[in-house]
């Protein structure tokens, strides 16, 4: 069981390592979307600081969505998804493994980049700390919920955009609690309430999402 989970994760990490540029590009997307805003909005530091948490979080959402559309699609196209579903191990572990691998590949690096972006927007150290913490708790939610969407839209035309359409509304609580925690810190209130709600949401997602993903996969490849 655990061996299977680890194999699935190792496989995806290996594939990501093989696609050298791809992984880096996704991180660049994140940086760029965030950096677009000062260009579109104007350079006032006060306002930029105000919008920073929201912008970083929305960019994290979009970056994860972009990579999610390929979470199962590549494996589906080349037939290896079928082969994995024909493995004797339970599909729910496959779903969980894929989501965790996605988080390790695309979510974790965001945590490293976020502080730099925070500095760009003139955030204080403590605010940046909360930003990172909120991303640490929140990004697994993005991967897990996203995997549900990726499984549902598998093989459909326009899967990527459809995925966005399905999943963005479900991301709302993560976005609100995550950006809310940072906002609260900016406003001098504590982030604890938001963070613990975010953590609860993450736990719930962890319990539910892999099962739904596994069911959706079986339906989609039929």
């Amino acid at each position, binding site marked *: 069981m655990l061996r299977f989970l680890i194999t699935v994760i190792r496989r995806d990490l290996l594939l990501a390592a093989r696609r050298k540029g791809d992984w880096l590009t996704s991180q660049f997307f994140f940086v760029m979307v965030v950096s677009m805003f000062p260009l579109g909005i104007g350079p006032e530091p006060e306002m930029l600081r105000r919008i920073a948490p929201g912008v970083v979080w929305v960019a994290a959402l979009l970056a994860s969505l972009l990579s999610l559309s390929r979470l199962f699609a590549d494996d589906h196209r080349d037939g290896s998804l079928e082969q994995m579903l024909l493995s004797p191990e339970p599909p729910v572990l496959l779903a969980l493994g894929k989501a965790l691998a996605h988080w390790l590949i695309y979510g974790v690096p965001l945590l490293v980049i976020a502080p730099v972006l925070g500095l760009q927007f003139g955030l204080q150290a403590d605010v940046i700390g909360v930003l990172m913490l909120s991303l640490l708790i929140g990004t697994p939610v993005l991967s897990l919920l996203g995997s549900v969407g990726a499984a549902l*839209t598998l093989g459909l035309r326009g899967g990527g955009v*459809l995925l966005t359409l*399905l999943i963005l509304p*479900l991301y*709302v609580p993560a976005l609100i609690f995550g950006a809310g925690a940072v906002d609260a810190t900016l406003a001098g209130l504590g982030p604890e309430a938001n963070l613990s709600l975010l953590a609860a949401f993450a736990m719930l997602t962890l319990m539910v999402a892999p099962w739904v993903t596994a069911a959706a996969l079986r*339906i989609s490849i039929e």
Partner: protein
Amino acid sequence: MSFSIYKYASPMTFYGLAGKMIPWFSWGAAILAGLGLYIAFFMAPTDFQQGEAYRVIFIHVPAAWMSMFIYMVMAFWSAVGLAWNTRLSFMMSRALAPTGALFAFLSLWTGAMWGKPMWGAWWVWDARLTSSLVLFFLYVGIIALWSAIDDRRRGDKAGALLILVGAINVPIIYFSVKWWNTLHQGASVSLMQAPSMAAIMLMGMLVMAIAAWFYSIAVAMVRVRGIILERERQTEWVKELLEKN
């Protein structure tokens, strides 16, 4: 034997039942809507604060209620469908979704129309407004998913899964949005707390709500009959039915 009753008899008998129900609910909806509108425009007093514009409430509130209620019903049918693989359940949730989306849109639309005179803005990022918007997005997502999937069985099941995930999420979304909104600012614009709403207004709203309910049932029945016919095209009873007409 019971298996085959599940699989075949159910849509067939339901087709007839739905046919009988449609006139009742259509007429019910029409009469109640007439009554409700009469109350709304002739019996309810002009609001001393808001003037006549407030009368949109008689559409707005029932629409908002129905949009949420229909989602719950869809979630129920989806759960039943996934658990027992009953084909009729999936057809029901497919038949309901457009009406739900319509009501969600209607509540947004009427709310926005009302917001302009009341708040001076078509839209504010209030908690209730925002969660209505998210609900509307959910409806759109579900319909988009169905329309993207050609295979009927896959579409049914995938849609049902999405509806259920959404159903778990909707309350969470609702509270998160509420909390988000109040955290920042002490309710820049609070929706009116129904301060001692006149009994006649409440009555009008209830009547309109029941009318909307009847309307939803009637429309859903019409749609479900269409879906049944389309899906059971190759069965004997549909062929007979089509030949009779």
